[in-house]
């Protein structure tokens, strides 16, 4: 293939022809692919793709942030964010089950960061081919088109709206399916990821940090330390960004007083903060009793998310809990001088 624009079109068409399809790209490639990225969800084709996060140029480098895949959040792709190589491997297998589920028929993007996951070598268990074959029976596409009469000519506007609504419905159903598939996977292979969202060390805490992707691993170590020091802070790992786990967050909002969202992305000129924080604010808005919300920008353009930075963010969250109000809604942690890194 000479470019990503072509690669995705070919992948979508191959999927329509009945093949099980996989492709991968990063940063510039994902953005270049965007026109074609709308095809699989619109045509309801279960393509699986690894979106390896990398900062977009210019003002980006070779290293990761989440903006490239988050830019595709409106395309209709299911997006699962992974913490390490093991989760990537397991999630790709799960992704086909989710994408090819009759109730869903949507493409799945397995997102993980360049360098910190993609170029990092770490022991990873590969499941047995036979067991995977059992888990993933041969694929047979049964939903060619919802509106066959519209397939090769401009559809009626009414049908477009219907088709889009059906994608939204499928996304809603996907929440349950993702959890179901993950549970079954855990039963068979011994590794599970709590579906869309994982709460780590959250018993009896008052505040939580929400992370996505590779920084979660580092945050686990920091949260363990803080819990050891008796600080009431836990960690929530957001794995499923699309569909967004609205209900889970609403339920969490009843239990935690302060939520700090760590965003490895930014949306210039937005209502404030990163994409995850804004999504979360919308999810929590209808509640009467809302927790305090803090938002941090960190790791933009692929700079390292250090232990010091996570500790700093956790401390700001705890401070807001003690005071009962938020002093600074959005903070750019990288611009602060946190002294010696470690």
């Amino acid at each position: 293939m000479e470019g990503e624009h072509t690669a995705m079109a070919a992948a979508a068409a191959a999927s329509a022809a009945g093949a099980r399809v996989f492709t991968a790209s990063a940063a510039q490639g994902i953005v270049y692919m965007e026109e074609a990225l709308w095809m699989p969800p619109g045509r309801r084709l279960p393509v699986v793709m690894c979106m390896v996060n990398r900062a977009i140029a210019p003002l980006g480098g070779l290293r990761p942030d989440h903006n490239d895949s988050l830019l595709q959040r409106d395309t209709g792709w299911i997006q699962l964010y992974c913490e390490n190589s093991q989760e990537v491997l397991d999630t790709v297998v799960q992704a086909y089950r989710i994408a090819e589920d009759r109730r869903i028929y949507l493409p799945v993007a397995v997102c993980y960061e360049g360098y910190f996951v993609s170029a990092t070598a770490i022991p990873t268990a590969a499941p047995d081919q036979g067991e995977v074959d059992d888990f993933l029976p041969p694929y047979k596409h049964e939903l060619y088109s919802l509106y066959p009469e519209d397939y090769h000519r401009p559809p009626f506007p009414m049908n477009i709206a219907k088709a889009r609504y059906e994608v939204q419905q499928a996304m809603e159903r996907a929440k349950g399916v993702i959890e179901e598939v993950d549970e079954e996977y855990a039963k068979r292979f011994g590794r599970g990821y709590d579906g869309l969202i994982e709460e780590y060390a959250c018993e009896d805490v008052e505040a939580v940090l929400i992370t996505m992707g590779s920084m979660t691993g580092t945050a686990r170590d920091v949260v363990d330390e803080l819990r050891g020091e008796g600080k009431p802070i836990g960690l929530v790992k957001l794995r499923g960004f699309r569909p967004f786990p609205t209900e889970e967050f609403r339920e969490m909002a009843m239990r935690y007083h302060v939520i700090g969202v760590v965003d490895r992305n930014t949306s210039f000129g937005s209502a404030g903060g990163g994409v995850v924080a804004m999504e979360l604010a919308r999810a929590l808005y209808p509640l009467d009793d809302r927790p305090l919300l803090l938002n941090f920008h960190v790791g933009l353009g692929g700079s390292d998310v250090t232990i010091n930075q996570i500790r700093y963010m956790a401390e700001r969250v705890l401070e807001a809990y003690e005071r009962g109000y938020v002093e600074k809604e959005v903070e750019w942690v990288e611009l602060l001088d946190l002294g010696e890194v470690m």
Partner: protein
Amino acid sequence: METDRIFDEYYEKSLIQGGNLCCPGCGGPLFWRMALEALGPKTIVFGDGPCAMCAIRFLRVPTFGFHFSFVADGATGISAALEMKGRDDITVVSSGGDGAVGDISFNKVSAAAERNENLIQICVDNEAYMNTGIQKSGLTPFGAWTTTTPLGKESPKKNLPFIIAQHGVPYVATVSISHPADLKGKLRRAKEIRGFKYIHFVSPCPTGWRFHPSKTVEVARLSVETWIWPLYEIVDGTLRLTSKPKPKPVEEYLKLQGRFRNLSPDVIKLIQSNIDGKRERLLENDGERIVF
């Protein structure tokens, strides 16, 4: 220090900065130094993307770039802006690698050629995507090992200069760093012509072609002498060979490079017969109009 001062003056004159980010023995910086000596300081270079990024950022002329997929586009914009400003003294150069010009941006280059934009399009062809880890491109030659063609590429190299020539552009030429006078002469000529000029430069890559960096110029010279990379220009549709060396066997060229290590004698014979045929057709058409 005295030496440092002498060199700083030399870099200024050659329109390059000392120290670039290319691999040792890369043909790219050598090409740019020769090219800028021919084009002069009133030049704007447009181009980006991994290997080109390393080579272009050390030029002492204005440079600008986006990505792989915009090769001739940005240069078109610069050229249009200069025309609006009435600056016909500036040469616009658009540069891309083989992956960009031959594959990702092929449609852009083709469209710019069809519009006959006033710019020099250069293809710095190192015959694969080198910076990203030696992946095959459309301009990788038949039989060459890359990380995505571990057993050797099965399809032939796109003949890009001839494809561009068929657009009916005023000037197309191939150049080699082993023939500096020829290279500079062609660029000077391109500078004088108005419209779309295409220069194809095969850049030996020690890292991806697997040879010792000191052999770069030797490999480039052999590619000309074996007729694997013949030097010619196509002016207004008429072909003219600018170098007609006595042909050496292709094996001399192939055996210098690790990427051709696994070719069997039969395959080498096949490559030789292809090259022989190509050479005969080129010699037949020397001085003839080849664009229809």
